[in-house]
């Protein structure tokens, strides 16, 4: 759902669909590690980290091992739904997971997260006080903030009319201007909420009537849509299959950085957008909660956080870390949108399983 990390989406998609298709379970590795219990009291120096693809700096895990002696093995997931489906079955063997804001709430409500021991996390002092008690996790009982991100439109400048900037959701939801040249995100919840945002509703005021309105709009728009992409919209844009996609800012940042022709761009539409925050959490049945706390505290070190933030290109909520980053990173409006844009953006709250089913049923009818 969120941040399929900054890209190489293709690889993460490969991992995700591959796992789904063939039934590989990454959980397998938990079985072996759980077998060898260390001496009473101490945890064996290992940690299983379940993360989005390319969503951490290359040297972070190695540095952590040098500093703490704990060896981290990281496996990747591609959507929050995949993460939740795995957590739901329990005993996955993971010690640290990276759910997005609404899934922090969902996991917490399902009693799948371990309350954090704040005494073991002194580096919480580095985090922006403004995000220390978000609606999705009051008082940060379960989650350490890792990144935050926007959804917006990625586009190819040379395929737009001269001087034109697609500054509205209209061009993907309610217009035939780019007929057959647009790709929408396939995540039902995000898509319905963004549709509601375009129609002037808050992303948290999506009633069944609003869902019906969005559904009707998308059914009408369907002939103009080339595909619903599984978070690889930037790849479709790069390959020239489409000219306009709904994507996460970090995914587009990477595409823009790699684009030799400097022909790609990203914009948050004028109606505002949905914000997401990815968080580090510890599953309630994590085999090594002590190591997990050490890892979380390490990630919040200013130097470590700065390296990660610059490497993955997403916004960091860690003020001490942000102070150590380059001016290019700090002043990038695609990473940190200006205040007037931010004023129109909002986080989507978790609103229960029935809502997710409502969204999914509507999108099934649209795609049928």
């Amino acid at each position, binding site marked *: 759902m969120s941040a399929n990390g900054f890209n190489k989406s293709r690889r993460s998609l*490969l991992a995700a*669909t*591959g796992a*789904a*298709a*063939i039934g590989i379970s990454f959980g397998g590795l938990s079985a072996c590690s759980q077998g060898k219990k260390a001496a009473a009291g101490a945890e064996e120096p290992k940690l299983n980290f379940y993360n989005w693809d390319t969503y951490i700096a290359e040297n972070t895990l190695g540095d952590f091992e040098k500093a703490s002696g704990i060896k981290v093995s990281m496996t990747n997931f591609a*959507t929050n*739904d*995949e993460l*939740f*489906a795995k957590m*739901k079955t329990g005993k996955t063997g993971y010690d640290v997971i990276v759910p997005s804001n609404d899934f922090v709430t*969902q996991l917490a*409500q*399902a*009693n*799948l997260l371990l309350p954090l021991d704040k005494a073991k996390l002194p580096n919480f002092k580095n985090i922006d006080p403004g995000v220390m008690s978000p609606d999705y996790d009051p008082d940060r009982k379960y989650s350490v903030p890792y990144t935050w991100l926007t959804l917006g439109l990625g586009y190819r400048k040379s395929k737009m009319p001269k001087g034109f900037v697609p500054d509205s959701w209209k061009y993907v939801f309610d217009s035939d201007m780019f007929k*057959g040249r647009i790709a929408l995100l396939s*995540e*039902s*919840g995000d898509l319905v909420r963004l549709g509601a945002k375009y129609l002037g509703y808050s992303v948290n005021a999506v009633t069944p009537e609003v869902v019906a309105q969005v559904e009707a709009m998308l059914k009408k728009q*369907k002939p103009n*849509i*080339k*595909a*619903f992409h*599984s978070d690889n919209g930037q790849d479709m844009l790069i*390959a*020239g*299959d489409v000219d306009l996609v709904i994507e996460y800012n970090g995914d587009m940042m990477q595409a823009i950085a790699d684009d030799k022709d400097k022909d790609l761009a990203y914009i948050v539409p004028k109606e505002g957008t949905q914000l997401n925050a990815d968080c580090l959490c510890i599953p309630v049945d994590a085999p090594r909660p002590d190591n997990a706390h050490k890892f979380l505290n390490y990630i919040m070190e200013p130097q470590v956080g700065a390296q990660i933030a610059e490497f993955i290109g997403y916004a960091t909520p860690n003020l001490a870390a942000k102070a150590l980053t380059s001016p290019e990173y700090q002043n990038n409006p695609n990473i940190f949108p200006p205040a007037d844009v931010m004023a129109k953006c909002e986080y989507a709250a978790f609103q229960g*399983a029935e809502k*997710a*089913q409502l*969204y*999914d*049923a509507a999108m*099934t*009818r649209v*795609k*049928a």
Partner: protein
Amino acid sequence: MEQSWRQAKSMFAAMLSVPLFWLVVFFMVPLGIVWLYSFGENRGLVDIAFTGTWSNYARALEWDNLAIFLKSIGIAAITTALCLVIGFPVALAITFAPEKVKPWLLLLIMLPFWTNLLIRTYALIAVLREQGYINMGYHWGFDIVNGLTGGALGEFHALPLMYNNFAVVFGLVFVNLPFMILPLYSTLDRLDRSLLEASLDLGAGHIRTLFNVVVPMAGAGIASGILITFIPALGSYLTPDLLGGADALMIANVIEAQFKRANNWPFGAALSFLLVYMTFIAIAVQGLIERKPAGSRS
């Protein structure tokens, strides 16, 4: 060796116990649990209560979902028909190939199995996409003709090969063709050649011999080829997901969404079991077809 199993019951039991254990523990029991889920209801985010409700099946049979089932059947049927039309001549050609070449031809048919389905599908994307090999070749030829005629063809428009139902059917035929060719080959290879010679000697042409002699005798191979192509095609998930466009949903994609996005396992289980029931029906139909010729001959 020609002992009846009745005379060696303990041996028979020993031989059977391992596969039977495997079948029950790893197939019947998990499938039974999913079957129970299909009569359950969500309780909160994690738990499912077995209430014996039929509401999941009622919802699965609503028109929205039924339409996707029908569309999936349609796509699987077109795929199977194309596989048969393409696969039959290929199987026939291998049958009549020289003995030395045969193993190599069969190897070529089986070669794709050595590569993961996902990789084969990604390879197809590289071929079909707008700046893929087919469109690049087409663009190249187009520019040459345009250059020679001074732009007679007008502006170049790439062929829409990806992100539509054509791509899904193409991908499914590509993936399932070996499943059709192999059973056809094994039937055709056992064919009594003298019957073909007799048919030709007695004045029937090649086409007539093919349809009046070869096809009826290959009936069992055709039926099993159709079955093992149709069933996986009906439940295909990856191909529509990666190659399909805005209306590419097949029933397996809907099922996947229930287990993940919608977090509605009971409904997903009901949809899955409808698919299982359809498979049973397809197998039963094949059984009937196979029995018929035997009955009419006697």
